């Protein structure tokens, strides 16, 4: 018995090792294929201006800043609320492949592209902003809730007299067990939603990103810094003022302040569906006509050669390298948010810090550590890419750095929080030995689970790095929107959705094979 348990632990450890190795090898292979040449002349003048700006934030107009903050918060809270409701309903059917595919589909489309789509029919309205966040977040939350439901301890369910899964089964034996994780995860997604909401400003919604992007593109770094610090402050202080009890108050307030409304013209909607998104060769033609079909084939063929294939190739390549870099960075960053590494010295000496949960909250070292992570994950990838571009010149390197730093800081934060749940022996080592011989092995499954979950996010985010001229699928989708070819945009969106669904399926397969828990109880 003990022997077989040992063997199964050993084989599962080797499976984890193998899969990590395969990912590292694949990233190295991808690295050979991409260009990461460094070619920059003198970035220092611009970087000096940026630094000077960062050190001397100046508020260009308080009303603008405050209304930007309020709008950012309002879109995020409304979006997540709607997403949590829709996600919950979808999660009830998460065992059906079709629903999983649907969720993977809606979350494969970047918030910015959802906003661009809705803008075609609802204009630059508050409804556009709400839906652009609510829809992809519903897909994400459905996945998380769905997997939480799958992973709850089956013991209470097994003790029910009726084993048939039904409504009471769900409400008594599943939901209560998943509830805490759902709440924590949703509150974490809310932080992400604030970032998304800010980013929506890049396409014109009146959030902080609107002014941040404006100031950045004009090179007004002091103003940009003020908007960025406002965003940081909003995210950094959430825990202080967003209490569960106050939530209904905030909700009523944001719906009152920014009611989701739009003047949707029926005409625009009809035109969008019946004309804009119909592939150009099919518009106004008889569908089953030899000529139409051959035109369509030509059109598709050209698109495949010029955009779909290179787009897929670059997206997967960039995604793979960034994924592995993200993983390495997350492992390096996690101590910053871990009570095991950022702990008050006097508690260590007594060897009983784990029992002092309340004292840990007052741990200033960890506060600083997590602030660094908040800073890293709040810097928009596009800004990171711009800085990388200045320093390293145009190549995939700035893109890898931007995606890696952003996502690495997110996973590092989550892993750090997860280590709160690890209980150590009183005589546990500390520092490097503790990290490599105790913490890392114990959190490794968790780490892989987070990384696989971030995989599709990274693929999606390759979209907004057009400044580097990296021709990912998102780059072509953006170009299609710019040239009002909504048919091509939609086709490319479908391709990236197919890629996302495949990655989701593969990650699900790995998760089951490696018995990873995608969503840790401690989130």
């Amino acid at each position, binding site marked *: 018995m003990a022997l077989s348990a040992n063997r199964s632990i050993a084989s599962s450890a080797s499976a984890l090792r193998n899969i990590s190795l395969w990912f590292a090898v694949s990233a190295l292979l991808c690295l050979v294929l991409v260009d990461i040449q460094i070619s920059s002349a003198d970035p220092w003048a611009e970087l000096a201006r940026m630094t000077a700006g960062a050190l001397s934030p100046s508020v260009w107009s308080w009303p603008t800043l405050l209304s930007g903050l309020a709008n950012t918060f309002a879109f995020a809270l409304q979006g997540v609320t709607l997403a949590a409701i829709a996600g919950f309903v979808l999660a009830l059917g998460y065992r059906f492949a079709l629903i999983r595919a649907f969720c993977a589909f809606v979350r494969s489309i970047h918030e910015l592209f959802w906003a661009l789509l809705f803008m075609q029919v609802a204009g630059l309205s508050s409804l556009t902003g709400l839906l652009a966040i609510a829809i992809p977040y519903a897909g994400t939350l459905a996945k998380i809730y769905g997997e939480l439901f799958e992973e709850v301890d089956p013991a209470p369910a097994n003790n029910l007299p009726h084993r048939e899964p039904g409504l009471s089964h769900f409400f008594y034996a599943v939901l209560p067990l998943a509830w805490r994780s759902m709440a924590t995860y949703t509150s974490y997604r809310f932080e992400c939603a604030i970032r998304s909401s800010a980013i929506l400003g890049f396409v014109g919604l009146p959030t902080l990103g609107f002014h941040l992007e404006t100031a950045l593109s*004009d090179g007004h770094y002091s103003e940009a810094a003020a908007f960025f610090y406002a965003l940081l402050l909003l995210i950094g202080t959430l825990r202080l003022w967003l209490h569960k009890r106050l939530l209904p108050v905030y909700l009523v307030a944001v719906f009152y302040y920014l009611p*989701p409304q739009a003047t949707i013209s029926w005409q625009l909607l009809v035109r969008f569906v019946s004309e804009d998104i119909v592939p150009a060769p099919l518009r106004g033609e008889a569908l089953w006509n030899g000529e139409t079909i051959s035109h369509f084939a030509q059109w598709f063929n050209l698109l495949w050669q010029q955009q779909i294939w290179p787009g897929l190739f670059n997206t997967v390549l960039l995604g793979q390298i960034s994924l592995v870099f993200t993983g390495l960075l997350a492992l390096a960053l996690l101590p910053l948010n871990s009570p095991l590494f950022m702990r008050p010295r006097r508690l260590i000496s007594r060897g009983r810090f784990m029992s002092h949960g309340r004292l840990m909250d007052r741990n200033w070292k960890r506060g600083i550590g997590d602030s660094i992570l908040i800073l890293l994950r709040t810097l928009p990838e596009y800004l990171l890419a711009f800085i990388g571009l200045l320093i390293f010149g145009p190549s995939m390197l700035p893109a890898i750095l931007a995606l890696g730093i952003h996502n690495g800081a997110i996973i590092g934060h989550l892993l750090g929080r997860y280590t709160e749940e690890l209980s150590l022996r009183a005589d546990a080592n500390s520092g490097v030995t503790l990290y490599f011989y105790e913490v890392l092995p114990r959190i490794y499954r968790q780490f892989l689970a987070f990384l696989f979950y971030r995989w599709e996010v990274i693929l999606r985010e390759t979209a907004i790095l057009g400044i580097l001229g990296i021709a990912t699928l998102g780059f072509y989708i953006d170009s299609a929107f710019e*040239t009002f070819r909504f048919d091509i945009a939609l086709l490319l969106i479908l391709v990236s959705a197919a890629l996302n669904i495949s990655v989701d399926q593969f990650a699900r397969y790995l998760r089951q094979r490696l018995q990873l828990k995608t969503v840790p109880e401690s989130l």
Partner: protein
Amino acid sequence: MRIQLLRSFIALTLLFITSISTASSLESSTKTFVFSAIPDQDEANLQERFDKVARYLENQLGIKVRYIPVKSYAAAVTAFRNNQVQLAWFGGLSGVQARRLVPGSQAIAQGTEDPFFTSYIIAHSSSGLAPREDFPAAIAGKTFTFGSKGSTSGRLMPEYYIRENLGDTPDNLFSKVGYSGDHSRTIALVQSGAYQVGAVNYKVWDKQLAAGKIDRDKVKVIWRTPSYPDYQWTVRGDVNDSWGPDFQARLTQALLQMDDPDLLASFPRSGFIAADNQLYQPIVDTAITVGIIDADQ
């Protein structure tokens, strides 16, 4: 706790539904005349600059006029297409795209400088490229950045002349092709050497040069394109239905008569002259050649 949640859940759903339904009854007054402008430079002050233009038009036309800022060329065109704005200060290409999407719309005025617009090809000193009269064929093989994908002076016309002189697409000719997003950023990126060569709107370059933001030891103009028609005011064809039979004529008149230097500095132009759709045929042809718009539309 769960019952509490259920309650707030229901309350929320109701709240959401009511706010949606009130929205549909809250149709914004269609009588306000709304215009926009492409965000080509100095975006931070767009609102302030164009609010003055809105007040000017209000005084001239005796109706309510509002300016709404947009974030991209495509957003300006979309707003125009969806009748969220009725008038827009477009670039050459965005104007052409807008008029193709809204049949009946008219280019009514352009800046005095706009019939003879031009783009500069700029290069970082380390590229070894020197200013010249004829096309600088040596830019082939360098790294290159355009401005916004939808920009006439930052993308369309430079790309056209590159293709015409070197006989190939930018993707094939240059070692890297980026899209900086706007003219100011193109200058910043070439000045830092991140890209060796770039294409930029001459007005933005001249303005930044005058403002002392450009270090000419690091970046200089190596070529200027032949001239082409650029920015213009375009109005929807159906404005007369809402604001009276001679509205378009009065609007055109008001734009052409704008002579306050403070207002004109918003664009920046020295004055406005008449324009029509036909003037922009060269832009249409070029955009078709470059593949930005389809020939058969």
